[in-house]
């Protein structure tokens, strides 16, 4: 029971909530506004995370420039996905997007000379024989915890510094996104979500609007990838399995797909679910080994998704009338 009461546990939960919250915000813009069902969102996270690792470790770039390039590449990947497959109708696009993300993952898995293959970022070939990519941002994170140490003592951890870095971004993005959704741009998109013909008859290029949405969502996916890479300081292909996209979807449907502001509550719930199945040590959890806990997590996430869709498809904060019905 102690872990529950330890601030360290909750700080980890918050850090994770911030990262996956930003990830989910991308899906929220794509689905909640544009009606795009993107099931390959994890691909954007993988691309930006791996771009950082490869540029920093293999080519000795500065972390910050690498992060910028990573996000740009994620946006580029979103554009590529959209230009090729966004003309497909909803369910076909969803399947195509999964295939897209899986191609990205297989490429990472099988290109040992660049990405380190199955061994992950540790095996990325480096001129100075060391496979870390977080040295520069770590200096900054340490600087933050050094400032906090006199005030809160031992609770000043790297996780806490991460929370202090990620959450302002998360809240800023929530604010930007909720402003974005009051613009005429978003109104056109909401119209396309229900019916293509009306906005088209008003001279709107529906495809271009959708593509823009997909790219903006991908940027959020990419930014989440940067923070993810920073938080865990280690990347492996199995960190970017299909299921990660559904972490994001769980947060989104928990919040209600049209409710930007419910997102941070849902993100904290997800962070708790993830952290609890990983760290908490009380009965009956204490009976399980760590791989079994990982499976318990997968089960719980599946369960929450099914329960929500059956019992409360509008989410905890959504209104039933606003629900998107295809």
């Amino acid at each position, binding site marked *: 029971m102690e872990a529950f009461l330890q601030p360290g546990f909750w700080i980890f939960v918050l850090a994770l909530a911030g990262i996956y919250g930003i990830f989910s915000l991308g899906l929220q813009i794509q689905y909640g506004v544009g009606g795009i069902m993107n099931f390959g969102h994890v691909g954007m996270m993988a691309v930006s995370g791996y771009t950082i690792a490869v540029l920093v470790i293999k080519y000795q770039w500065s972390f910050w420039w690498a992060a910028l390039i990573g996000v740009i590449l994620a946006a580029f990947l979103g554009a590529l996905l959209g230009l*090729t497959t966004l003309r497909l109708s909803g369910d076909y696009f969803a*399947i195509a997007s999964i*295939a897209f993300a899986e*191609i990205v993952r297989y*490429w990472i898995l*099988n290109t040992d000379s660049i990405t380190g293959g199955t061994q992950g970022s540790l095996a990325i070939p480096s001129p100075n024989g060391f496979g870390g990519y977080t040295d520069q941002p770590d200096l900054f994170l340490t600087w933050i915890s050094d400032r906090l140490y006199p005030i809160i003592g031992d609770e000043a951890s790297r996780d806490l510094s991460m929370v202090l870095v990620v959450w302002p971004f998360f809240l800023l993005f929530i604010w930007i996104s909720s402003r974005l959704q009051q613009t005429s741009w978003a109104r056109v998109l909401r119209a396309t979500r229900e019916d293509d013909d009306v906005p088209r008859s008003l001279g709107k290029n529906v495809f271009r609007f959708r593509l823009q949405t997909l790219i903006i969502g991908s940027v959020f996916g990419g930014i989440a990838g940067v923070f993810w890479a920073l938080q865990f300081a280690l990347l492996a292909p199995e960190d970017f399995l299909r299921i990660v996209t559904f972490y994001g979807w769980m947060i989104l449907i928990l919040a209600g797909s049209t409710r930007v502001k419910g997102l941070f509550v849902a993100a904290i719930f997800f962070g708790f679910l993830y952290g609890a199945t990983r760290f908490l040590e009380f009965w009956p959890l204490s009976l399980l080994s760590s791989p*079994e806990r990982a499976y318990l997590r997968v089960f719980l996430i599946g*369960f929450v998704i099914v329960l929500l869709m*059956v019992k409360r498809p509008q989410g905890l904060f959504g209104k039933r009338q606003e629900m998107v019905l*295809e």
Partner: protein
Amino acid sequence: MSDFIQYFFNGLVVGCIFAIAAVGISLLYSVLRLVNFAAGDFLTLGAFITYFLSVTLELNFFFSIIMSMVAGMAISWFLELVLWRNLRRNKAGTLALFLVATGVALMLRPIIQFVFGTETRKFNVDILKTYDFLGARIPQTQLLVLLFASASILTIALFIAKARIGKDMRAYANNPGLASVSGINVDRVVIATWLISGALGSLAGVFQGLVQGQFNNSMGESLLLSFFAAVVLGTIGDAYGALAGGLLLGLIMELSQLGIFFGGIPSNYKPVVAFATLVLVLLFKPEGIFGYRARKV
């Protein structure tokens, strides 16, 4: 030449398994408009139940396969009663169906894990015995799988074409409104579809387990997108198309390793060949190879 025969044979074997799994997915889509993301895990479940009965309990292998198919049917039926029926009644949208199917997959996998454990499994069959055919190496298990799988495919095709419930299914898939006014019992069609897809999932799982030699609990999941590729290739919702699409995809994936295609695509990229086929078909011929109707894209 021997390379070609080898890959062609492998392609046929893999293709038959894809065909069996794909036809279940395609039938479900045609009747319920449901993309069954849990189909892969039903394969895993079938293989593990068969393993449990035939290896752990030392029962007859064929009896074990039948029982695993019955289990697949029972679980599908159960899910229809507690889950899918309610969702249809609430007029759930595409996203809800997608997410629930995914949620079922996410729940099924840990359950398999808890009940059967994580170790790699192997059926109690001789996987080393091989025949030599024009320089190609043909393992006995694969030959048997090919025979039994082809027989299953013929049975399925005949069933859909001739059996009363098969005709009802096609009628309902074609025009649900017209089918129900002409006296077709909709609930019976839906349940029959679930039972068939459950049984075929288990069967395909056993075949896949036999062909791989050894398998673990991610076997079915990792094949899911290949099945979707087969379904889309053979026109989504078309049962015969799915059979053909499965065979064709199996051949494409294996023959892509031949030297004439870019010097041979490495075998660890085989799944990528399937994903790329999926994306390319969606892009250039989303109605599939047998599609004649212009679909709304």
